[in-house]
């Protein structure tokens, strides 16, 4: 009796999540794949015609938006690493007893709604806002200078909004490093920089790796930041999908664009994991 139950137990445990994924992920995915190959319109209805042109048309029409999305994703992800790593490092090694307080303070802004945060960025970056206004009034910035409605505004919004997804995995990786191992490096004649490059950095790379995946994917498919901060000139593929779906009711086109983006991200992440996620990186770091 216990034998049967013992063998069934693992399956029973994944049953709820399995059912959940089947109902709310797998089924819609299949429906969307099907939809992406259909033709028609909202009034006459959509019919399955295996219309692969939805993909080729989408890619040729919005190729520049794909490129921009991936570019923004890349820049924002790198910016996240640059900001998150020192912060995570400081909290992990210098935070002492107050580590969790510092982490909480870092995450506190993210308790506010995503939209509200993005809109408040708009207020910060606006031409007469609290930063640009005084700088221009004092003649530090030229009159025509503005940030809003530029790629810089979108990327900075993306960087800000997805920072915790980079900080947390890096922090966890750094936190796990045995301080005695770092001491051992100093003991074996390593300078501070060498100890960092040879010991701390390689041991924290798994955290950076996880952080990149957790930021790059949502950042590249985001549309809120471009919508609020980017203006009409800096739209990302997410904005196109949103417009096609909700404004134009072009469901097949929107589905095809979504799947194209998903495929591109999957291939990119896979290639990234193959080149950077393996031991080779760690090997290289040890030289």
């Amino acid at each position, binding site marked *: 009796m216990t034998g049967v139950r013992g063998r069934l137990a693992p399956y029973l445990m994944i049953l709820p999540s399995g059912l959940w994924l089947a109902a709310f992920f797998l089924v819609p995915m299949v429906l969307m794949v099907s939809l992406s190959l259909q033709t028609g319109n909202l009034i006459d209805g959509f019919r399955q015609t295996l219309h692969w042109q939805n993909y080729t048309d989408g890619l040729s029409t919005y190729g520049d938006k794909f490129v921009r999305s991936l570019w923004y994703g890349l820049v924002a992800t790198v910016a996240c690493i640059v900001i998150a790593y020192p912060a995570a490092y400081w909290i992990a090694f210098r935070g002492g007893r107050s580590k969790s307080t510092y982490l909480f303070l870092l995450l506190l802004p993210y308790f506010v709604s995503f939209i509200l945060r993005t809109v408040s960025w708009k207020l910060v970056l606006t031409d007469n806002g609290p930063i640009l206004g005084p700088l221009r009034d004092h003649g530090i910035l030229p009159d025509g200078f503005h940030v809003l409605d530029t790629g810089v505004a979108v990327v900075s919004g993306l960087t800000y909004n997805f920072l915790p997804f980079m900080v947390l995995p890096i922090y966890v990786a750094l936190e796990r490093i*045995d301080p005695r191992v770092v001491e*051992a490096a100093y003991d*074996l*004649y390593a300078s501070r920089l060498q100890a960092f490059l040879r010991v701390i950095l390689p041991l924290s790379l798994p955290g950076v790796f996880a952080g990149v995946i957790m930021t790059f994917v949502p950042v590249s498919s985001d549309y809120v930041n471009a919508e609020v901060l980017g203006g009409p000139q800096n739209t990302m593929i997410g904005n196109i999908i949103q417009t096609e779906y909700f404004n134009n009711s072009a469901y097949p086109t929107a589905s095809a664009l979504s799947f194209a983006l998903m495929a591109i991200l999957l291939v990119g992440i896979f290639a990234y994991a193959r080149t950077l996620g393996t031991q080779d990186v760690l090997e290289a770091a040890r030289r």
Partner: protein
Amino acid sequence: MTETQPAPARDDPGRAVPAIELAGVEKAYHAYGETVAAVRGVDLAIAQGEFFSLLGPSGCGKTTTMRVVAGFEEPTAGRVHLHGQDVTGVPPNRRDVNMVFQSYALFPHMNVFENVAFGLRRRGVPKAEIAKRAGEMLDIVDLAGRERRRPAELSGGQQQRVALARALVNRPRALLLDEPLGALDLKLRQAMQVELKRIQREVGITFVYVTHDQGEALTMSDRIAVMNDGLIEQLGTPREIYEHPATRFVAGFIGTSNLLGGEVAEAGGGSAVLLHGPDGRIEVPVRDGVRVAAGERLELTVRPEKIGIGLDKPGDDVCGVRGTVTEVVYLGTSTNYNITTSAGADVVVFLQNATSADDIAVRGDDVWLSWDPRHSYAIGAPQ
């Protein structure tokens, strides 16, 4: 393999310069507005090539003392000299000592060879020499052929030897070992004790060994400093420390020791005679520094294996104390007797079972304890 250092003598050119010298070292920590003194004034001179142990219970300041030598802690007061050079304030990466950490602290992302080569690479030793020296060192610690293994793929004993090789390959002026055998099981620990001693002889480097295990310290050390509460209680060879514990703490911490007290009947000529109970008489040599006057009380220690048991009152040339046997425990090679003396002190006696004869006494017997006065060791007035 022995380092020949030019070693400039600091004060006396005729004397060999100690490998490590601590002068009035103190270390206090500040936490929550409180100051905790971990080390309260340690003076030490460790000779070149010596196997020196810092022995004491946890929290006695032994690890802090070692970390001061390594440079991980800066002393609040006092100076640290390595081979005559004042290194107080010099960071660990510029001190010519290496450390074997309690948890080994191997670099988990590097294989055995890279771990061992780490220090040499940081010092810019040529590649060919690194390969040669690391290879030799891995031979010494019996790990040849495992260069490409990761630490996680090694047993605890092997990791320990990698840690040793990683430090020794740099030919430091002193090797600091922080309870390096603590994580190993008993059998392996005993084997490693012998191994460590062999390696130390082979490389001729000064070893400073931190441990709370008196057996380890007695087995391996040339000299031992017994520490308690941030101070050195006694410094001497294992034999001196065992045979002549200088303080109540050392007597209690090292091995089993009997503590006996009595009123001083006569004192002078480097010895004293104590009265213990109605008919007990103990003679004890008195060192300089132990204050003895007739009529005062004095305490002394005597080791359990130094005491003999008899049914008749011993002669006046030995110490004699009467007591009642309260417990007899047969242990094969020896028998332990617990005896309460006529003055009410509890005494343990270990007798070797040299013959297969019956026990000398059984529970409840009245017996006489006797020992050579040289085995009495005065430690001062009772507390």
